[in-house]
């Protein structure tokens, strides 16, 4: 049996697959960020908090209303998306004409407030959430044991990513959206309600974060700070992919997941750092990101 750098190939294949699974999370989260940035020009720092809210809403639905995982998958993004719409209508819409920095500061402040509120009510140590019965267990692939739930994460997030990309890049609705970001006044002249479109876009981006939160709830600790450690990595993914590039953030998400997975085998101590090293290199060589357009 040949070995690559001291690692048996079975282990390597396993790690590659796990990397893809983690990449699915990064892709889903950075997709929401990219949509919001690309169409609203807002750097949404509350994304991590909204991801956490998604997981918590799923937990609340189960504990207070006895609503299970599958409905939560639909309801949690809607509930959290509505809070996003309220935030956009009452606060964010006043900031579009100002520098990016204001949006960033506002959403960062909101993130801290949201996390603080959840911590105050639910404590910091997290809540239990089980894998739905239909997706427990797993299959032996020969080189590794693949839990069914992980397979579900990859398949569902890949599907969501592709649908989103298709809607924005290939449909009439998407072309309105893109046109509105280029020149809102002109699009309004054609009778399109641009402010409402922007509001719904923000709600949709936030809903994507919440969806990722529901997907994560059964495999990660549902705690108020679950989003804050992830959001920084996801921002790095978006920066590497190119701010606002939809396909860029999807591909980078999966790619970086794989690279991070391999780092965990060869030098685990650096697994949290490797993404930032790549980010620094990419910014030096191609400041607009791998898939971004220089403006």
């Amino acid at each position, binding site marked *: 049996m040949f070995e690559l750098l001291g690692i048996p190939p079975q282990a390597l294949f396993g790690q590659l697959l796990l990397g893809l699974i*983690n990449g699915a999370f990064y892709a889903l989260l950075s997709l929401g960020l990219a949509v919001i940035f690309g169409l609203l020009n807002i750097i949404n720092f509350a994304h991590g908090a909204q991801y956490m809210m998604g997981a918590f809403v799923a937990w609340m639905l189960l504990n207070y209303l006895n609503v299970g995982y599958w409905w939560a998958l639909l309801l949690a993004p809607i509930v959290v998306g509505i809070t996003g719409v309220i935030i956009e209508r009452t606060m964010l819409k006043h900031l579009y004409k100002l520098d990016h920095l204001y949006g960033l500061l506002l959403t960062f402040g909101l993130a801290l407030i949201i996390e603080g509120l959840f911590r105050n009510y639910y404590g910091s*140590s997290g809540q239990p959430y*089980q894998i739905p019965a239909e997706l427990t*267990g*797993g299959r032996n692939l020969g080189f590794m044991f693949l839990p069914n739930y992980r397979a579900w994460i990859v398949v569902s997030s890949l599907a969501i990513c592709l649908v989103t990309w298709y809607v924005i890049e290939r449909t009439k609705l998407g072309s309105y959206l893109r046109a509105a970001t280029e020149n809102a006044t002109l699009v309004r002249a054609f009778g399109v309600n641009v402010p409402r479109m922007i509001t719904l876009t923000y709600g949709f981006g936030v809903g994507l974060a919440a969806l990722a939160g529901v997907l994560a709830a059964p*495999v990660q*600790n549902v705690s108020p700070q679950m989003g804050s450690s992830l959001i920084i990595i996801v921002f790095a993914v978006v920066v590497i992919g190119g701010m606002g590039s939809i396909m860029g953030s999807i591909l980078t998400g999966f790619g970086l997941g794989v690279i991070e997975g391999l780092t965990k085998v060869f030098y*685990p101590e650096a*697994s949290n750092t490797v993404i930032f090293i790549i980010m620094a290199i990419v910014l030096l060589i191609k400041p607009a990101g791998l898939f971004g357009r220089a403006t």
Partner: protein
Amino acid sequence: MKAIRTIGIAAAATLAAGVANAQISDDVVRIGVLSDMSSLYADIGGPGSVAAARMAVEDSGIEKNGIKVEVIGADHQNKPDVGASVARQWYDVEKVDVILDTPNSAVALAVNQVTREKNKVFINSGAASSDLTGKQCSPNTVHWTYDTWMLANGTGSAIVKTGGDTWFFLTSDYAFGHALERDTEAVVVKNGGKVLGKVRHPLNTQDFSSFLLQAQASKAKIIGLANAGGDTINSIKQAAEFGIVQAGQNLAGLLVFLSDVHSLGLKTAQGLILTESWYWDLNDQTRAFAKKFAPKNGGKYPTMVQAGVYAGTLHYLKAVQALKSDTDGSKVVAKMKETPTDDPLFGKGTIRQDGRKVHPAYLFEVKKPNESKGPYDYYKVRATIPADQAFRPVDQGQCSLVKG
């Protein structure tokens, strides 16, 4: 006339208080609970520790004897520099006499230093590092509840003796994780076991599947989790998902608190073996304490760290009452060591020369969901480790206070 009488009464009262508290610095015993109030350890100590200290003050009855006590709390944010500067400000400006709790070994070691410099008192309950009563021991510090040596010895030797003789470590990559791994490895090897491999993961890792796969490939019988809080919860949750236990490997949580088991849920945590020095369901007195404590802590039951804060505060106040003074920190600690401890939670015990509080430790197993009668009914006792074996022998810690 009335005004003069009021002044007279006030003066008399002040004088009376002054006489009674001749040696209590500025007439009040100030207790500072320095803890993680907002992040990963906040449910282990945090606001619950402040509540526990307040309960201890109430139960001590010290205020009936004319000594005023005040309890305040602060957040050290898990940063040693923040912890040290809060401690300095408390001692210098706010006239705090004793600091309690302080989870996070790095912060605890910093506060340990400041307390010694200012000759105050530090009663630690939340931190794990056995260095607090080892190389860095101090005449002003008491380490109450547990330490890395106790955890390693309790869980490690019990598991090796019941056949778990090959180990793989998942270690949190900072001082605490390294210490816990080092202490456990020593116990495993001493009992005839073998360590097949280890992997060091960054603090606050979201995804452990890759590390778990490496642990699985090692074919070790036991996967030792030398990490804490959210990292432990995520590793156990994901180990269940990857069918690690069904495939015949077992997890050993080297530092698991009641609040962590609550977060995991019994379905995921069942069968886990862990060591703690206190659990609310040990006897009538601990149960009574938990019933009284929970409403003051948002319904959450006490952890061993919070119990340690309660017991530590009680014993401290006892020493202050006996000395009728709180001014000289090292004298108060000397008095605490001289007096045998006796409190409703830990029972009878002693504080050793090196500052180590000695009491039994318990090896617990997490119940199956059908064995549990309700929330927080999580542990059953597998073994009791007697007080004289639970902690590192006093002559092996390299503490300078211990005369050879």
